[in-house]
């Protein structure tokens, strides 16, 4: 052991792996996660470049093919107004991707910050944060959302902010209750005695321990945001025609599911692929960040 010869410090033969590289390597080892990532990549490409697959623009109306089943002319068929379903799924998926991901990013970030900081700082900060959470929880958020999105006339960006504003509270409570058990840990105390600033303790020692919760929250949040948007659109709020989202397409297709199933099936399939890819990625990230996970450390 090096104990008897201390004068020479041994430089490790290889470069130290940075933490992020370590995590990436562990993530890449997870097959499900890679499938999920590829799936998401495919969906993103489809949502951006999918328009090239069809000569039709999403707002075109083909009056020669109303409610037509999939054919060479319209690969995914047409809807009641003669709109090309393929072109519409491209735009709808793009809209839903953007709404789901950005809303969930925002809610996860807000809930993590509010929950963890409230739990670690305690005192009046904690009481204030909990009061805010409870207040927002009892506000009839759906009604407010409907009114807001109706007022601004279906601008999807406003919808994103409105959905984020009312979507973070339950997750924040989960983060808060898990953080309260973390703040008693020895390594938090040790960090305090080393003089690590409080905000850094939260970012470095509390939030990473919640990563699996946050990742799950995020993937659930994506689905929840897309579904919330769908419900709003279904009721005539949210995304409004002529703008389309997977939600509004589903709402249109649901009524004719027995007679024109392609109107429901294609947007539903894209929604399913999207949520599935999120779940697979979420599992992979969680395993990569979790040092006790046997799955990821297998060599």
């Amino acid at each position, binding site marked *: *052991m090096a104990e008897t010869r201390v004068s020479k410090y041994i430089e*490790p033969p290889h470069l130290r792996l940075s933490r992020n590289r370590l995590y990436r390597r562990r993530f890449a080892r997870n097959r499900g996660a890679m499938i999920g990532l590829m799936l998401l990549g495919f969906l993103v490409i489809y949502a951006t470049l999918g328009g090239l697959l069809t000569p039709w623009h999403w707002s075109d109306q083909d009056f020669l093919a109303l409610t037509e089943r999939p054919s060479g002319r319209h690969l995914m068929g047409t809807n009641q107004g003669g709109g090309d379903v393929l072109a519409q799924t491209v735009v709808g998926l793009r809209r839903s991707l953007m709404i789901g991901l950005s809303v969930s990013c925002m809610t996860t970030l807000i809930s993590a910050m509010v929950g963890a900081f409230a739990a670690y700082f305690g005192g009046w900060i904690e009481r204030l944060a909990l009061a805010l959470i409870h207040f927002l929880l009892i506000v009839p958020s759906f009604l407010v959302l409907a009114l807001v999105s109706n007022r601004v006339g279906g601008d999807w960006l406003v919808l994103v902010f409105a959905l984020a504003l009312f979507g973070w509270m339950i997750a924040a409570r989960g983060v808060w209750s898990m953080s309260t058990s973390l703040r008693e840990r020895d390594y938090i*105390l*040790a960090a305090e*005695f080393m003089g690590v600033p409080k905000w850094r303790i939260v970012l470095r020692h509390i939030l990473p321990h919640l990563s699996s919760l946050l990742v799950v929250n995020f993937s659930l949040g994506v689905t929840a945001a897309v579904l919330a948007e769908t419900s709003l659109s279904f009721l005539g709020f949210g995304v409004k025609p002529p703008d389309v989202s997977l939600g509004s397409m589903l709402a249109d297709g649901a009524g004719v599911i027995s007679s024109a199933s392609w109107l429901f099936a294609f947007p539903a399939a894209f929604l399913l692929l999207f949520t599935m890819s999120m779940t697979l990625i979420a599992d992979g990230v969680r395993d990569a960040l979790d040092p*006790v996970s046997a799955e990821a450390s297998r060599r």
Partner: protein
Amino acid sequence: MNEPLLSVRNMYVTFSSEHGPVDAVRGISFDIHAGQTLALVGESGSGKSALAMGIVGLLPPSARVTGEVHLDGQSLLGMSDQQWSGIRGRRVGVVFQESLSALTPTMSLGKQVAAAVRVHTNLSKRLAWDRAVELLDMVGIADPGRRAHEYPHQFSGGMRQRAVIAIAIANAPDLIIADEPTTALDVTVQAQILEVLEQAKAETGAGVLLITHDLGVVAGHADNAVVMYAGRAVEHASVEDLYRSPAMPYTLGLIGSVPDAGAAHRRSLVSIDGEPPSALNRPSGCPFAPRCPLVTDACKDAEPELVPVGAEASAHTVACLRFAEVQGRRPDEVFRNIATVVSGTLSDERVLRVRGLGRTFPITKGEIFRRKVGILHALSDVSFEVRAGETLCIVGESGGGKTTTLLEILRLRPPERGLVEVLGHDLSTTSAHLVKTRLRQSVQLVMQDPQAALDPRLPVFDLIAEPLRAAGYGAHATKVRVLEVSGLVGLPPDGLDRFPISLSGGQRQRVAIARALVTQPRLLVLDEPVSALDVSTRASVLNLLARVKAEFGLAMLIVAHDLAMVRHIADRIAVMYLGHVLEEGPAESFFKSPRHPYTRALLSAVPVADPGRERNRSRVVLTGEQPSAWTPAAGCVFAARCPLRPTLSKEIQQRCHLERPALIDCSDARVACHVA
């Protein structure tokens, strides 16, 4: 010899894991006769607990147990759960390590003991309760009639462990299995519990299987011992033989690595290099070969069998090719890597000065409307100082305020009462800015359990770098310093990329020490630095601490309850009881001529790893436990438990009761006692 009570032959315990089957226990054989105690000695991971749980059929269903286990001629392996129910509790009693998890929190103790009685008898509830009270009385719970109605959380650890013993002996079992029964307890309480166990054995005439890692406990309380290493028995002998002439280098090293509180002068400790092999990756030959100083090529070829030592078929068996060379040698002759006790240069610089430190906590009740119902005097009057290059150990039972003292110093805030001076800066007047820029780096902490103190999510490099980043070091300076320190504490070079979970206990504590040293502190504060580690790795961590202290002229403040360890490392010692320092002085005189009756009792409770001395020495047995610090007595805080008190005259007794003794100079030490 008559038939053994428990006979274990060639027992294997195999767990299945993701990496294939893992043998936790590999071919163990032994006998226990009625009225005898067999000690199973081994470090964590040696398979001793798996063996014990295998004997009583309490392993998870995924574990496979093979071999032969007979209790009074009846085979215990392969019995159904129902058959087991007739054996466990009636013929075999088990005492677990964690008394808190061994008892049901929602049932009163009396009910739990009565339930244990009623399972195997057809006594009425009334009679079972009476029997439970009787049992609680037998294990030394005062006022059992009243306390039987109380719940586990209302008892102290020692009292709970007594209750667990009461449950184990409720039906006068033939065999008592005690799995590390005293590991979580204070020394004074440990001595009491071991007495209770002895008494229970005498009362029931049972055989005892005592599982422990503490060789001191083995010396005083066992007849025979099996030393386990990597799932095998490596030595099996009567306790006298084992200590007089150990034949296996591992045993020799273990005996040599136990510090001796009673030794006349400070003896250097033997340290066994390396760590026990993991069950997944055992060497092909003798499992101890990689760590053995006497290793030869033959050792690596095949695993040695247990063979009798000496010509006749003696009871002393050992699994070592070179036992003849081991026998009769002293640990420090075999293990070259001995810790030399380096005495650093003492300067007169007082790194830490504490005078009359006091700290109280309000005791509140109620959930919504918190109201104060009392004051807990955690610290009342604590005074000591630590100079550069000096180690001060604070000792005492748990609840005495040792850890609170550390935390008060580490907070680097103005104390509630009294004076704390760090590097000459009085904390009550030092600006927050100076604390942040200078003092914080100069005072660092090593916690008891490195697994809890190191964030499991961060790789070792980031863990060690953390105090540097907090102090604002740049990326390059940080890297240089971390590499330097990790080499200094002897971390493997590839260790910096690993997460704490993939390190062994000793390595983890090295990481914690490296992290404490990285800012080049002047004062190192350590809270029980080795008590969470294995015996064989303890010595090397202690050696590391002694070395860095000498090398950097560090001042060290250590909280410990293991006096044998303190014996090895301390320069000065302060004894704390109920928030008071009762005695403070140089380590040599503390062990040679303890003055305060509490100090004497503490010293007397430490078991000695030498059966001859352990059994024949006189003891001061302390009754009861430390009272809570709710309402401290007006007089001497120790008066209620003082073993000296009955021998004193009426006037002095009165004085002890009414007047609190001050800490006064008494030759080279300072003692707070009216009669010392």
